């Protein structure tokens, strides 16, 4: 089974770079996700790998074979479309058997494969129905079965769950991963839903404006974001802006109105430099009243929202900055609006970044 390599690929539409010198390796049998906001180039990258469009420059390999000049029908891939793209004039069963047929498998072999893949997607009813008569979930299963029946070694999925309702989506995403793993396929899954990507992927590439900004496992991306964009796009972060006053080991940052806090200097920023400190809402502790402690911030609760497992607090810090934290809803007593609180954050989970040239809002814009 193949790995997929993309080397220095660029694709332009007019003057706009859909992909700008992108390189990526997806390992053999890996379940890999391309994650990013709309227009980031993730679908373009997937369609380039499938051969549905051609790169302006760069190379694409599936296994050892260079494929960027090979037509899609010769790439041994299976592609699942967001719209499913089931052929409306064929029954579900004919859709599944389309690949084996155009590849000239004999009828018996094609049927055997058909039954196998339908077994795999757990669909053995309504095979004589036309796509327009099937539910979203069923169409999804047929689309996957059809891609598998054609003998794909690499499975490419373009927002395959986008048209399903939430409940079905959660069920099917694990099934697709299971099938890919059972069949030892290399799978590349495009999505803009970070929860979906994190729950099913071995590794994820986060994309922004035609570039890959970070590749890693879910944990790596969550725990150690390389950029403010990833810190914002994967999970949620509070961003505190300030200037470095001390830069050796434990740095000191002066926030607005002279408020001073501590952070670990992972980015080698120098004194006087403008920085942003990213702190995730769920890493913080919160106590009632003003309690003097290390790495703490004082503020007043302005808004509370019950979100099921957690309560979300929006707090106005003493220097006027806004700060959000999430606390368990069942095991902790809730704090009320208007109460004074002390927030403490773990130094090793607060990430320090140089202030972006384009400005913070522009940097994290999705």
């Amino acid at each position, binding site marked *: 089974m193949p790995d997929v390599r993309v080397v220095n690929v660029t694709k332009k539409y007019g003057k706009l770079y859909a992909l700008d010198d992108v390189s990526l390796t997806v390992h053999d049998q890996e379940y890999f996700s391309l994650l990013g906001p709309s227009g980031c180039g993730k679908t373009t990258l997937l369609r380039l790998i499938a051969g549905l469009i051609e790169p302006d420059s760069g190379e694409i390999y599936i296994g050892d074979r260079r494929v960027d000049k090979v037509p899609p029908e010769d790439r041994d891939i299976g592609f699942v479309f967001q719209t499913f*793209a089931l052929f409306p004039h064929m029954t579900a069963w004919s859709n599944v058997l389309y690949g084996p047929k*155009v590849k000239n498998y004999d009828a018996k072999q094609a049927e055997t494969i058909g039954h196998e893949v339908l077994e795999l997607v757990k669909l053995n009813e309504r095979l004589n129905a036309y796509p327009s008569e099937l539910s979203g979930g069923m169409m999804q299963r047929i689309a996957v079965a059809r*891609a598998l029946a054609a003998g794909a070694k690499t499975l490419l999925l373009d927002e395959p769950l986008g048209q399903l309702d939430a409940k079905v989506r959660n069920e099917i995403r694990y099934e697709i991963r299971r099938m890919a793993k059972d069949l030892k396929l290399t799978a590349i899954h495009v999505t803009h839903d970070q929860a979906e990507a994190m729950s099913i992927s071995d590794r994820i590439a986060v994309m922004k404006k035609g570039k890959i900004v970070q590749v890693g496992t879910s944990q790596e991306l969550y725990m150690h974001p390389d950029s403010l964009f990833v810190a914002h796009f994967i999970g949620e972060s509070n961003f505190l802006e300030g200037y470095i006053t001390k830069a050796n080991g434990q740095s000191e940052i002066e926030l607005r109105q002279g408020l001073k806090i501590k952070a670990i200097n992972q980015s080698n920023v120098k004194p006087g430099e403008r920085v942003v400190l990213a702190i995730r809402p769920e890493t913080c502790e919160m106590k009632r009243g003003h309690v003097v402690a290390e790495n703490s911030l004082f503020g007043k609760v302005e808004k509370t929202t019950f979100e099921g497992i957690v309560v979300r607090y929006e707090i106005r810090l003493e220097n006027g900055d806004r700060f959000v934290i999430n606390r368990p809803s069942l095991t902790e007593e809730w704090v009320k609006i208007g109460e004074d609180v002390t927030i403490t954050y773990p130094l090793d989970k607060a990430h320090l970044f140089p202030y972006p040239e384009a400005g913070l809002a522009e940097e994290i814009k999705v």
Partner: protein
Amino acid sequence: MLSKLWNTLNTLSSKKPLKYTLYLSAIIIFFAIILVPPIIGILLKVGTVQNVLDQPALMNTALVAIQNSFIIALIVAALDLLAGVPLAWLITRGKSRWLSVLDTFADIPFVVPTAALGYSILLFWSSSGGISSLFGYSLVSPGWLLVMLLHFTFSFPVVVRVIVGALLDYKMEYERAARTLGAPPLTAARTVTFPIIKPSLIAAFSLAFARSLSETGATFIVAGAFINGPVFIQGLKNQLASGLPAPITQATYEGGTVFASIILIVVSLVIFGLIRVLGQKLTLPFGKGLPLVEKKLSYKKTAWSRNSVALVVFIVIVLVPSLFVALPAFQAIATGNTLVQAFTGQSIWASFWQSLLLSYGLGAIVTVLGILAGIPMAILIARKTFGKLPSAILDTLINIPLIVPSIALGISLKFFWQGVPGIPEFLLLVFAHLSITYPYFVRSMSAAMERINVDMEEAARTLGARPFTVFKTIVLPITKYSILSGAIIVFTRSVSETGATLAVTSKLVTAPVLLVNWVNSVRGIIAPIAGVNALTVGLACGFLILFSFIILLVLRLLTRKGKV
């Protein structure tokens, strides 16, 4: 052998050279056979225009004729919209199951060959046997009013068809949303539905306008002393041949023809350009309207009377006059003798069946060639294979033959091809008909291609299908009804085409040309043809209508079956 060839071509279809060869040949055929010859043909003879400029009386006649053409076309297209929209509305929104019958009937004048239609209209409105018999005098004599009635009749179905299609595709949610926001039905239609289907309203107007501008055969039958552009050109041709009322020189004939053609083409292009530009800028709805009045007009009673008026207009002005010609056919059947003569091919009937065979054979060849040359072009336009701009340019260019009066097109083709020695007249006919019908097929096919989700074709490719297989297994089955209806339009249009046919032929006689001759013989416009009388003309028209109607019915049945 054939399957081996298919396999090789199919494998090659994955490679770019074959793909581009196909597309390029489609473009070359379009330019070399359809677009460029008529343009060069006219330019070749541009020098002869001096002959017209030297004869102020002739020039004046030509200019008045052309002016008449545009005035009639504009009025007819406007009336078509006015009457066609309510009927299309009734067909798509009404609940009675008789409406599908009405839908089929609305197409009849479209498939009646225009020459037969012209005679039919003449009989109905003008002759003592038609509606005039109720009044004791000729209700509408041949002239501008009769031309207008004729043009209204044959362009009306085009308008209804386009708007029915648009209303069927239209999402009712928009209108329902407007209703929930407080708009009475008529206000909702004016403020929401019509603005959304505006492109179709403009397309319908343009098509009706173009049909009225270019129709020749039938117009000549009903024109009387009235002259429009095509009638002027046809008149010159007849005058050259017969020397009546006064002999004219070849140079005067060519000059007059080229002069009228150039002005017709240039003004048409300007008007269509204007429609295109202004159409986009036209923002509907106009002004605030009168919601209170519209509310009153939306009541059931007014809706009922609106529907009745639409129906009456359709039946009295379109349907009955179109079919009226079949009455003498029944009379011919009753007398028996004419029918026996017709079926045994005696006397003049031999030439009738011959011309019919020629017309249908020609139609079939033109249809097949049109499909072969048109499919790659339709794909190019719909899929924007060479980019957005080239696709838009091609899209505009293929419509040019649609707006050029067919007789002008035929004459310029003749000028071009007569420079090629030994070119058979039949081939000229094929080229002329191909030019006229090509836009219809490409438009209907490219519209169908645009409706296919591209994902579908890409899915097939990723499943291992080569481009030819994708076309055969996905595109063809999904678009086959559009291909079929496109083919039928090409076929019926070719079979009923008169103007260009008259222009390019001197020996071959197609059915509509024969019919025009017969009608003119009966009316004493040309020297009488032995054996031709009102009965034979009626029967001949009856045959043409019957055959066309059968074709229409078969199409209906086929497309019905296709609905999944």
